[in-house]
């Protein structure tokens, strides 16, 4: 029973924590992710994007994370307002920031990855398989990204209180729109 409870919290902590409290915990983890990511060469370059890169400064890393959070929070807040009347901005802000917590694992994993240049992959695609760090990163990143999106979904569900198809469509459309907006902003700024 106790184990099940803990598992539920990993999947949906937002029944227990939301609002400013979730934002405070979330922003601390996001800042750590940005810091580790800049050393590890992991760029969070999109609302739901992560890429291995070279020469990423701390400033750029934090700027990318800022764009990601602002895009997700603003777009999902607008989507939430369309499907639910009772919605607090601080709940979307808190849950969406805390939902990014699993991404710190990607930043840590990035420390073991040696980047492979695009030219090298183009000339020899098998080069990826000769880089064990990259293979481990690719395999482990899948459940982490699923966990991250599941957290965002639960955060949106708890914050809006909406149910059914309306909520699912609102979340999916909002997330895609946030990804597009974040990509446009990153393209404009970098």
């Amino acid at each position, binding site marked *: 029973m106790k184990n099940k409870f803990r598992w539920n919290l990993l999947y949906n902590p*937002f*029944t*227990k*924590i*939301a*609002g400013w409290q*979730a934002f405070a915990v979330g922003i601390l983890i996001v800042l750590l992710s940005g810091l580790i990511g800049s050393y590890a060469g992991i760029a969070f370059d999109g609302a739901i994007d992560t890429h291995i890169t070279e020469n990423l400064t701390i400033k750029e890393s934090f700027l990318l994370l800022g764009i990601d959070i602002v895009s997700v929070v603003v777009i999902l807040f607008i989507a939430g307002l369309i499907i639910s009347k*009772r919605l*607090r901005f601080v*709940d979307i802000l808190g849950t969406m920031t805390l939902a990014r917590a699993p991404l710190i694992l990607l930043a840590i994993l990035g420390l073991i990855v040696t980047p492979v240049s695009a030219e090298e992959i183009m000339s020899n695609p098998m080069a990826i398989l000769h880089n064990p760090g990259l293979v481990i990163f690719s395999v482990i990143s899948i459940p982490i990204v699923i966990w991250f999106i599941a957290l965002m979904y639960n955060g949106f569900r*708890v*914050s809006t*209180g909406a149910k059914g198809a309306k909520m699912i469509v609102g979340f999916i459309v909002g997330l895609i729109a946030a990804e597009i907006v974040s990509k446009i902003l990153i393209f404009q700024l970098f």
Partner: protein
Amino acid sequence: MLPSKCPSCQTQLKVKSLLCESCHTEVSGLYDLPLLAQLLPNEQDFIVKFVRSSGSLKEMAKELSLSYPTVRNLLNDIISKINNYEK
């Protein structure tokens, strides 16, 4: 706690008779349960706590160790249920 649903088929129960404990007079008929008695025991408990906290969802969240939007969603579910009963 007064049962509100039939244990066999889950249909809403009605009151068939009431008894005066003092003179043992029995009043028979077919009466609807009061609105709040139609709710589940945990929902009735939630309403009692809500009234005791003077309608403060923040206080309720603290008492139940739940987040504010979760408590608000529980309240919204009860409001929808009451609206359905009234229809």
